[in-house]
């Protein structure tokens, strides 16, 4: 029985950690952007995928395999895209006083457009290079060390995502807690109108937030190329449900709860399914199912009220008499 109660538990735990790091890198910016701008941004998926494809095109067309370069480039590009979305779509809509629902729908439109724009790009790239960009193999980078702690092999992806995730967490903390602009961000998040009064350039704060959030997700995408065995233009989309679920567990407000969500989902998807499979013979193919079940349960048990402008309605009426 491979020594332990759940055979191969070590690997499962390694994967849990790996996924946790990815979910942190993908979900923290999502939460931050929602908190500051109140936009549920489906196009978040594009940030991830575009980040990955920056690295892929660099590798596939120019033969460049330096992650740091790809990461910086991805940060700038996806960040720029995020700002562009905000300036061209979200801000005008908000100015007109469109409802959050409408803005979400617009982000859905952007999501579709960007996704197939990328497909078109891969077609063109394929035409000139006769390489298959629609399904691209893992990239081995020259500038990322492979670690080894206590006999456990640490892949490039793990090292890279560990460094990035810790950087993101620390820098976000410093930014939000210690700097003036960070406090401005929180002010905008907590009370936009008040922030306006207290003379903080709101539009700048919002754009900066978008830039950072888009950029971080993009870097995550780059790291993804060193982890996933085959990257497709769907990579971000097929992950977005998990990423959002992680965010929802945090109610899309608290960065800390988002972190908890990352751990929870990662654990469910790796250790959880391993246990279910070993002891209850649940097929592995139920893994995504578990994630969605978690989402629905979260919404029923602890609905992220407030965040979505929820309804003050109680199905179970405590305290009511006769």
């Amino acid at each position, binding site marked *: 029985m491979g020594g332990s109660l759940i055979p191969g538990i070590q690997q499962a735990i390694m994967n849990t950690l790996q996924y946790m790091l990815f979910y942190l890198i993908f979900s923290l910016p999502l939460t931050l952007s929602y908190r500051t701008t109140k936009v*549920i941004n489906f196009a978040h998926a594009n940030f991830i995928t575009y980040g990955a494809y920056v690295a892929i095109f660099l590798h596939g067309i120019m033969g460049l395999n330096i992650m740091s370069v790809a990461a910086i480039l991805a940060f700038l590009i996806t960040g720029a895209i995020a700002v562009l979305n905000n300036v061209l*779509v979200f801000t*005008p*809509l908000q100015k*007109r006083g*469109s*409802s*959050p*629902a*409408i803005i*979400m*729908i*617009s982000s*859905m*439109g*952007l*999501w*579709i*457009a*960007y*996704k*197939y*724009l990328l*497909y*078109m790009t891969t*077609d*063109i790239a394929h*035409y000139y290079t006769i390489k298959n960009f629609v399904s691209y193999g893992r990239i081995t980078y020259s500038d990322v060390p492979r670690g080894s702690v206590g006999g456990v092999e640490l892949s490039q992806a793990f090292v890279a995502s560990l460094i990035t995730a810790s950087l993101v967490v620390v820098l976000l903390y410093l930014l939000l807690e210690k700097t003036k602009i960070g406090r401005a961000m929180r002010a905008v998040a907590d009370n936009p109108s008040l922030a306006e009064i207290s003379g903080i350039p709101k539009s700048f704060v919002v754009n900066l937030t978008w830039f950072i959030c888009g950029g971080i997700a993009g870097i995550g995408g780059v790291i993804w190329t060193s982890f996933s065995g085959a990257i497709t233009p769907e990579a971000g989309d097929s992950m977005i*449900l998990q990423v*959002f*679920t992680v965010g*929802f567990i945090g109610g899309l407000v608290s960065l800390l709860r988002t972190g908890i969500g990352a751990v929870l989902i990662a654990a469910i998807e790796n250790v959880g399914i391993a246990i279910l499979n070993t002891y209850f013979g649940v*097929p592995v*193919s*139920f893994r*995504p*199912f578990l994630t*969605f*079940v978690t*989402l*629905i349960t979260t*919404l*029923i048990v602890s*609905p*992220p*009220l407030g*965040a*979505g*402008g*929820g*309804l*003050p*309605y109680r*199905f179970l009426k405590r305290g009511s008499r006769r």
Partner: protein
Amino acid sequence: MIGFDIVGFMISWLTLFGIYAILSLTLNLESGTAGITNFGKVVFYGVGAYVSATLTAYLILMLNGVDVSETPPYDIEGIILLGELGNKSPLLNIGLLVLSLMIAFAVSGSLGYLLTYPILRVGPAFVGFTLLSSGELLRIFLQHYEPVGASKGLMAIPTPFGWIADSRVREAAYLSLVLGLLALTYVVTHKLINSPLGRTLRALRDDEIAALCLGKHVPRIKATILFIGSGFAGMAGVLLAYYLTSVNPNMFVPAVTFNVWAMIILGGFGNLKGSLLGAAIITFVDRVLTFVTPQLGVTVISPDYLRWVIVGLLIVIVLLVNPKGLLPEKPIKTPALDVVLEELRGESR
């Protein structure tokens, strides 16, 4: 040798238009009027399709004395049997159509009713996402559930008019069925919107908290609307299943929902005729593209990608430039307006 069968074209296009129009009308009732951002339309569509497929396949076999535990309809023997037994009695086929329409309505509707529970208190932004992911939930479930063929899906589903020999007549008959149900959907949604209920729905859309403070039982109203909308979506699913005579889990992907969204946004949020128009335009363009793209020869970029980019941008641009869509929302028509008119006439006199 190349002629063009205009009648065949119209039939095939209008059939698809009818199915999508039912979806867009009901989505417009839910999202355009009541403000429930339903990104999970495909769930109820899919459930309807599977209900009719399963019901028809199994009942046809059973009523012909086949032991479905021996030869289930999703195995090759069952499929061949379905082909042979499928179109023996017109009455049975029609009966099965009616039955699956009713059951599909009930099942999809109830599912919609239940799904409102988790999403009710979490505000519009979360609703869309939850319904979206419940679509994926359904797909994975279907891929594992053996009685409905699991990942194989079901095929060779006997169609209501399969007994009509001439294919053209059969297609026409089916088209009239589709358009009939479309008309029903239109009348119902139209009456619902132009009534005190419709007014309350718009109030909900504008400010559901205020509506709650005015004594409106917001949860019940939302659930009811999702029941009706999903019920009709289920019927659309039935039509699809009989049209393709096969169902497969991978038919019901989120892209279907987005297509319908594009239709109602293009046509006009809250305007039913707009939804018809939107559905007509998009399905029509899709059909026409199948004739035009070959003229381009082998292209670097697949035209399908271009088509989706345009759909995506269309959603954004319409919302930015003309949020009302092609046909803007009309004021609700109730007798109250007449009263006001009389009153004002009285004033002026």
